[in-house]
């Protein structure tokens, strides 16, 4: 029986820039930041109230994971905004939207009442987009 999710990955174009976005703009906490040799880094962050869910900010690099030009293809797809990885939650969407906009975060959709709930869509520094909702 699966009981919990503890790691999830987001593919990013640049880990330094993602650190700035997720930690300094979104206010996520660094869980593990481990140098793994020249130019390599294992970087995970957690939403402020979910310290046991590690979001891996995964660099797209040539190697075992991405072979034969797949890394470049993946980078292009991320840049184009192909991937929507997750739904985040806040206490109050209108206020969080205003605060995130004040920090320069780009939104694809402002808070909107949809048939399934109240939702906004924002984009990270790489081009990944996320849904943002609020607790009922």
């Amino acid at each position, binding site marked *: 029986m699966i009981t919990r999710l503890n*790691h999830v*990955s987001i593919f990013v174009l640049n880990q330094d820039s993602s650190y700035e976005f997720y930690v300094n703009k979104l206010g996520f906490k660094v869980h*593990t*930041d*481990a*140098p*793994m*040799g020249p130019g*390599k880094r*294992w970087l995970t962050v957690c939403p402020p109230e979910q310290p046991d869910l590690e979001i*891996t900010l*995964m660099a797209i690099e040539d*190697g*075992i*994971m991405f072979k034969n030009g797949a890394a470049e293809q993946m980078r292009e797809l991320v840049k184009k905004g192909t991937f929507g990885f997750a739904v985040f939650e806040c*206490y*109050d*969407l*209108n*206020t969080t939207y*205003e*605060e995130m906009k*004040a920090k320069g975060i780009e939104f694809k959709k402002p808070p909107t009442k949809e048939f399934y709930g*109240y939702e906004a869509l924002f984009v990270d520094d790489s081009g990944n987009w996320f849904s943002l909702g*609020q*607790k*009922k």
Partner: protein
Amino acid sequence: MTKEFPEIYLCKRIVQAKLFIDNHFSEDIDLNNIADEAYFSKFHFIRLFKTIYAKTPHQYLIKVRIENAKALLEKNIPVNEVCNTVGFGSVSSFAELFKRITKLSPSKYQQQFKERQEQIKTVPLQFIPNCFAEQKGWIQKSNFQ
């Protein structure tokens, strides 16, 4: 949380108040002044702030100070210096509050963080799920284990 959504102009004022706390947490903040600047009565301001952030402004200020204290302790800054930098008047009240919230004294927190960083540096693969380490080609490098 069930409530009416605050009007957008109310949101902006509350956001400004929250950002004011974020940027001035180390100063001697008078929450009455923040309520005045946001054009709210103190009662209305506290109620709205708590509706939005699930904490009163005072509780939020404490949270911001403690989070910033953690960040400074992680940089190996001495406890008394951290206490002053984040806006607490006395080391004993800071230490007591810090322990109540984090379950660790500031010095113990600092020590544990330092030990963990040392572990991450010397045996990073203990912190990375094997499937990822394998895909990255890191498990072949024995110096990471």
